[in-house]
Every structure is written in C-alpha cells, then in structure tokens.
C-alpha cells in the first residue's frame, strides 16, 4: 500500500462515528429518514456517495465486499467502488453474493437469498417517497410524523388512471412495519418482496440528500397498492438466454442493429453461477448469432 495518508476506509474516525450513530438511529426506527452530515466524497453525486459513506462506516478489516450496479459486478460504478475500498481499506472483495459480508448495491437486490450476518447497502438518489407530490420538505416531514399517507396513493391512482394498471416499476413505495412509507431506492419492484422479512440488515444512504434509513433483519415491508389493483411484480415470458433461469429479473440486450435482442439475467453473479452448474440457455452467443442470420435471410 502506498496510500498511508488515508485513514482506514477513507473517512476519518469521527465522521464514521457520526454516520454510525445515524445508522443506529435508523435501525431503531425502521423506515425513518435520519439526517446526517454527508461528506464530499471523491466521486460525483449520483455515483453512490451515500452508499459509499455507509459502507465506509460499517466496513471492518475482515469484511468481504461485493459491489453491484444494476445487478452487474463488472460495470464502471461497481468496479470503481470496489477498487476504491480495496485501495483505501484493503478489504477482500468478491463477486459471489454468498461470500460477501457487505454488499453495496445500486438498483438491484441479488437473486440469491441473503442470509443472516450480511449487510446490504443501497445507494439512494432521492430518499423522500413524496418528493414529486409534495415539494416542501417541511410538509413532507409533518406528513411522515403524522402518518398522513393518503398522498402517496394519489401517485398510484394517477398510474392506474393513465395506464390502466400501476405503472410504477421502480422505486415503488413500501410501508415499513405499518408505520413509515419508504422509498426503497430505484430497485425494480420485482425486488420489493425480497425486502420483506429479509434476514440481512438493509441500510440506505443518500449522499446528496444527506439521509440514512434502515431496515433491521426480519422487518415487515409491504408494497402499497389498491384493493382492486393489488401489487404485482414484473413477469418475464422467456427464461434467461444464457443460463435458462426463470423467476429472475432479466435485462434486454440488443444484439445487432436489426432489432434482435436477447434477455439475460441482470444479476451477473447469479447467471455465472448457474452456467458453472451446467445450466445452458437457448441463446448462448454463437447459436444466438446463427439464429439471427437465418431470420434475416
């Protein structure tokens, strides 16, 4: 290591202490947004400055860190943050969900179920679920304080009125322990049920908005809905083209400029693990390319 000028995990100990206090308060009041003195981080807002600060505050030398961005371990954001902590904290990193003790995530919850002892840290751009309905922060605080959550259903009503169904597909509002309405960060609503009763500790950090909130293990998390329009997750018609998995969240990948596309697992670790186990999807690259040519001819 040639960076002795950095404290362990980049932040100084007083800052980490301050963040830990906010985290503890967040855990004590599930779903409540705790303000904290967010620091400038050596990356732009929107890259996960909140998540990075939470991770820095909870990381210990023995932790194994996994970072995912939209489910993938190999995208710029994930690679950069993993490298950042490998450099400043010298912790072990992994791409295997099961091996990790701390998972920092942007926009996904891993497909493999999380277990007790694991911590998942979400990067949150806008922590306030009512933000686009009620612009005044003073008012949203009163709404949370007095549990006047009728407004959040106005948003769902608008969805049904315009699209015939609840068209919100990500950042889908949830109610935590029948008390606080919480924005689960921009994860697809497909992942919402995974938050309910999860044995892992879930922490949410919003750097620009300076808020931390948390779900302790085995917290009751319900996605909001109407009686006659119940909450539903996305469904996919076909399995993953690479590993043949069903019941997972799929990404659409455009494979050429003639409109062909394939659907693959968004969770790269899950997909790789399945392929190592011998699962073969219908659209593995070579056969997929041939099919396309035949179709075009």
């Amino acid at each position: 290591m040639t960076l002795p000028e950095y404290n362990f995990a980049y932040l100084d100990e007083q800052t980490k202490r301050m963040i830990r206090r906010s985290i503890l308060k967040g855990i004590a009041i599930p779903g409540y947004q705790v303000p904290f003195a967010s620091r400038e981080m050596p990356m732009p807002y929107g890259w996960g400055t909140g998540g990075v600060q939470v991770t820095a505050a909870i990381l210990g030398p023995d932790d194994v860190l996994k970072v995912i961005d939209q489910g993938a371990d190999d995208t710029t954001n994930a690679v950069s943050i993993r490298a950042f902590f490998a450099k400043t904290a010298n912790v072990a990193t992994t791409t295997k969900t099961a091996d990790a003790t701390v998972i920092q995530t942007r926009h996904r919850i891993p497909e493999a179920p999380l277990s007790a002892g694991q911590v998942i840290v979400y990067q949150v751009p806008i922590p306030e679920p009512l933000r686009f309905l009620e612009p005044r922060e003073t008012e949203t605080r009163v709404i949370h304080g007095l549990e006047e959550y009728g407004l959040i259903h106005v948003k769902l009503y608008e969805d049904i009125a315009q699209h015939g169904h609840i068209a919100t597909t990500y950042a889908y509002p949830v109610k935590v322990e029948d008390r606080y309405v919480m924005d689960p960060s921009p994860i697809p609503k497909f992942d919402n049920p995974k938050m309910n009763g999860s044995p892992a500790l879930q922490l949410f950090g919003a750097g620009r908005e300076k808020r931390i909130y948390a779900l302790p293990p085995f917290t009751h998390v319900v996605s909001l809905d109407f009686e006659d329009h119940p909450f539903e997750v996305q469904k996919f018609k076909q399995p993953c083209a690479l590993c043949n998995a069903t019941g997972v969240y799929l990404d659409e990948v455009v494979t050429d400029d003639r409109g062909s596309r394939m659907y693959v697992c968004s969770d790269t670790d899950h997909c790789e693990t399945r392929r190592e186990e011998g699962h073969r999807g219908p659209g593995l690259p070579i056969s997929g390319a041939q099919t396309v040519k035949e179709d075009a001819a």
Partner: protein
Amino acid sequence: MTSPILSVRDLERRYGDFIGCTDISFDVWPGEVVAIVGESGSGKTTLLNCISGRLDRSSGSIRYNMRDGRFPDLADLSEAERRFLMRTDWGFVHQNPADGLRMRVSAGANVGERLMAIGDRHYGEIRHTATEWLGRVEIAGDRIDDKPVAFSGGMRQRLQIARNLVTRPRLIFMDEPTGGLDVSVQARVLDLLRGLVSDLGLAVVIVTHDLAVARLLSQRMIVMKSGRIVETGLTDRVLDDPHHPYTQLLVASILES
C-alpha cells in the same frame, strides 16, 4: 336550535404593533352562510385564516363543535386532530384555484385525494365517487383524467369545490371564491355553490368584497373595517338598511344598473 358549529370570541391577530383584526366575536350555526365583507386591508382574510387554523391567533378563543359532540378550542386540539379536521370536516376554497388544487395530477386524483387521505383504498370506488362529484359541479365525465392546467378558470374553481366537498364536510371557508372569474362564469359558480350549500346543509364562512355575492349566498353578514367588526346582521337588513356610516358608504358605492 342546538349549538353553534363555530364560536369565535374576542379574537385578535397582530402583526407586531399592527392590528390584523381585533375584538372579533361571532357564531356560525349549522347550515348557515355567513359573509364577511369589507374593503381591501380590512382584515377579512386574516380573520378567515385565523378561524380556519391556517394562521396563529394572538389572543381570543375559537371553538368548534366536533362530530363527536365535543366543543373544544382549536388551540387545544393536537396538530394531528386539527389536520384531520381540515381534510375531512372542513373545506377551504381559495381565490386562486392553483393554491387549492394539485395542478400536476388529474382532476380525478384531485377529487380522490381526500378520500385516499381518510383511508379509502379501492380504486374503482374512488373513481366512481370522483366521477359523481365532477358531475355535480358540471364538469364532463370524460375530463376526469385531464390535469387542472388544461381547465379554464371557472372549471378549476368548480373542481376545487368538488375536491373540498367529497368528504361531506360540515364547514367550508371560502376566500373570494369568484374573485378571478368573469361575470358570466361567476354567475355559474355562484349558482352552483348556492345549490350545493342548500342541498348539503353546509355551514359556510365566505369572505368577499363583492356585495352582490354576499347578497346572493349569505343569510348573515359581518362588515369589517380596519380590523374590527363595524356591523353585523341579516344580509338583507344590512344591505337595505345599513346603520353604520361605513356600511352606508359601502352599499352606496355599488353601481346601480
């Protein structure tokens, strides 16, 4: 008669040394329309904001007859109770509809918001009620998914009225409800209001500087000047036989047609 729905005693609101309104006492009875008239700056809106809990008072008491029979001072209610009252038992119609509506969500959601706020979670029923209320305020049912920004001034005002009435409130506050509308639209809104008020048996406190509006809607009238009540009485009596010099001036200044 049982008891008044709203009882105001010795109300005062100061802005520093300046008096917003002072020495205000009156009652509002169930089902009656009380007009507060006076010139600009006479303290009408200050008074209305005080009694509707939107502005803190400096001294005095405002008591409200709750549905459960209690008759507490509004200051003794918790903030949660007060806010619950505001979105169920009360309505507030603003002069500018943009202040009272959510301009970026559809008309149906605007009407349905109060229903959802009191725990209604059935989309079909909310929509049905919203359609019904849009009909009652003469907005075509096919405009239910349009946003208020696409509505004319008169339609916005009618939408605001529907939004306030959907929870069947008992007391409505109105601040110059026809202020920004042209004469023919004004007449239509007034006609509608008069019908709804008598159908639903609402108690209304309406602030206006337009004596014609007061004559058309209200049974009783309070005339204010410089933050004080100068004259009260039945509307027809006050307008046809004004006692106070200021009221006489006010009535005399109406253009004869």
